[in-house]
């Protein structure tokens, strides 16, 4: 579904990514892991289109999207959450989630300003669909009219996931979905991510620090260290890989935010 081919990225001589290739297979959960500063966030920013790599390609569903702007990638079915919660405070859960449907709606200034039937219908259908499908699946129906800033952290992360899903993405990028969560919240989030794969058949690519979560839900794992891929395979293979063990020495349990990129 999504292929990253041999991407090189450097900032003023500092190499952030050198020769990274990742493939996210259709309908699977692929995880990218690595210690602090391994280049995970840089990789995500290349995939989303915020950074332009010096060389290499990003291919989505057979189309080279390396040069596309972030919003154009959204229109091609790429959706993403952020490591730090990127919800819009002051807005309700429902409105936040509706923002995710931007690419699916067509209303412009005139049609929505005049409340033409087309735009009214579109909004009503979206409301109904969100209530029926997304909020129910992520167990958010009871808080749909709350303001997002009033919700606990774990729920806010879930709202972000809901927003990313409303887009009906072909590929969903999750940037440290369980960072800063307690054990209970992590387990729930893990369940929701596998639900996304199993019930919606969405391809998921995630970067994560938390080894327990990654090992538990991923189908395929890629390990980065200092901007280079050092291993890839199933969770079982990765767990036994000597290079991975070395790179992670003492760092495996560290769930702190990966700020370096």
């Amino acid at each position, binding site marked *: 579904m999504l292929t990253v081919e041999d991407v090189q990225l450097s*900032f003023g001589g500092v190499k952030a990514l050198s020769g990274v290739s990742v493939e996210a297979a259709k309908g699977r959960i692929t995880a990218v892991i690595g210690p602090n500063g391994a280049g995970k*966030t840089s990789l995500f*920013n290349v995939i989303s289109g*915020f950074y332009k790599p010096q060389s290499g390609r990003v291919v989505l569903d057979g189309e080279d999207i390396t040069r596309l702007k972030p919003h154009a990638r959204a229109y091609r079915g790429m959706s993403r959450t952020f490591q730090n919660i990127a919800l819009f405070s002051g807005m309700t859960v429902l409105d936040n989630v509706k923002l995710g449907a931007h690419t699916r709606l067509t209303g412009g200034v005139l049609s929505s300003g005049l409340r033409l039937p087309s735009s009214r219908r579109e909004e009503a259908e979206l409301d109904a669909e969100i209530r029926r499908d997304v909020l129910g699946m992520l167990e958010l129906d009871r808080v749909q009219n709350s303001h997002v800033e009033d919700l606990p952290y774990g729920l806010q992360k879930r709202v972000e996931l809901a927003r990313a899903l409303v887009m009906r993405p072909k590929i969903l990028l999750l940037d440290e979905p369980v960072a800063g969560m307690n054990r209970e919240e992590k387990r729930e989030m893990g369940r929701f991510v596998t639900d996304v794969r199993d019930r919606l058949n969405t391809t998921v690519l995630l970067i994560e620090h938390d080894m327990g979560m990654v090992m538990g839900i991923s189908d395929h794992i890629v390990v980065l260290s200092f901007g280079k891929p050092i291993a890839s395979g199933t969770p079982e293979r990765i767990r036994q890989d000597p290079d991975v063990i070395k790179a992670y020495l003492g760092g495996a349990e560290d769930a702190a935010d990966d700020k370096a*990129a």
Partner: protein
Amino acid sequence: MNAFHFFIEYSIVGIASGGVYALIALGIVVIFKSSQTFNFAMGEMMMLSAYLFYTAAVTFSLGILAGMVAALLGSIVLALVIERVALRPMMGRPFIAIVMVTFGIGSIIRGVVGMIWGPNDLQIPAILARTPVLIGDFFIPGKTARAAAIAVCIVLALILYLRYSRAGVALRAAAADTITAASMGIDVRRVVAFTWVIAAITGCISGVLMANVNTLTPHLGVVALNVLAVIILGGMNSIGGVLVAGVIIGWLEAVTGLILGTEFREITPYILALLVLLVRPTGLFGSRGIERI
């Protein structure tokens, strides 16, 4: 006298008025460096300083020297009050909110000056001699030439001070990286207050000079808005670039005044600003930085 001769003469006069603009620009850029604040009230601070000078020197008959000292002190106190009361509470807020606060302060000062001193022009005591200065066969009006000389001296003195004094080092550290500077024991809030003092001084001197070259009116400060417009486009990173921008405005105003008519002087900086935006959307010297996401 041919057209070329006029052109050169106007150019020299323009560059000379640019000296005062450079002084204004310096006041704007130091505040920006310390706190990323664009001070839209710079012009009004200037204008108020000139009125303070007038009041001290004429109304209270203190004379020129004591009047200037009083105006400087008054301006500094005012700048510190503005910084403490209006800008410190805004730290960390979106930049457009901060811009609007300085814009609001400008409006307050304009109004207060209008209420106290009225809308009519005032004549301040002559500080600068009127005898014209001759460079080759080019005449420069005496006041303009002397104002430029004073402005340039003060700009140079301040640049040297900022380069070699402890305060200047602290400012550069704070400008480069606030958090690191704070961890090195630099009191960033004091640095910010210090830059407001610098701005008060440059504003006061440029205000009095401008009031001398022209007259003292509540519109005296409008030039600072022009200066601000151009230096934002020049890129706010380097003090040198900003000073050059100040001189360029002076020159352009004079030359467009000659070619298109004096009424065009007031909009020259804005036309320049729009042209620059069209050609180089990131500003003349600015570069697109890498942003953290």
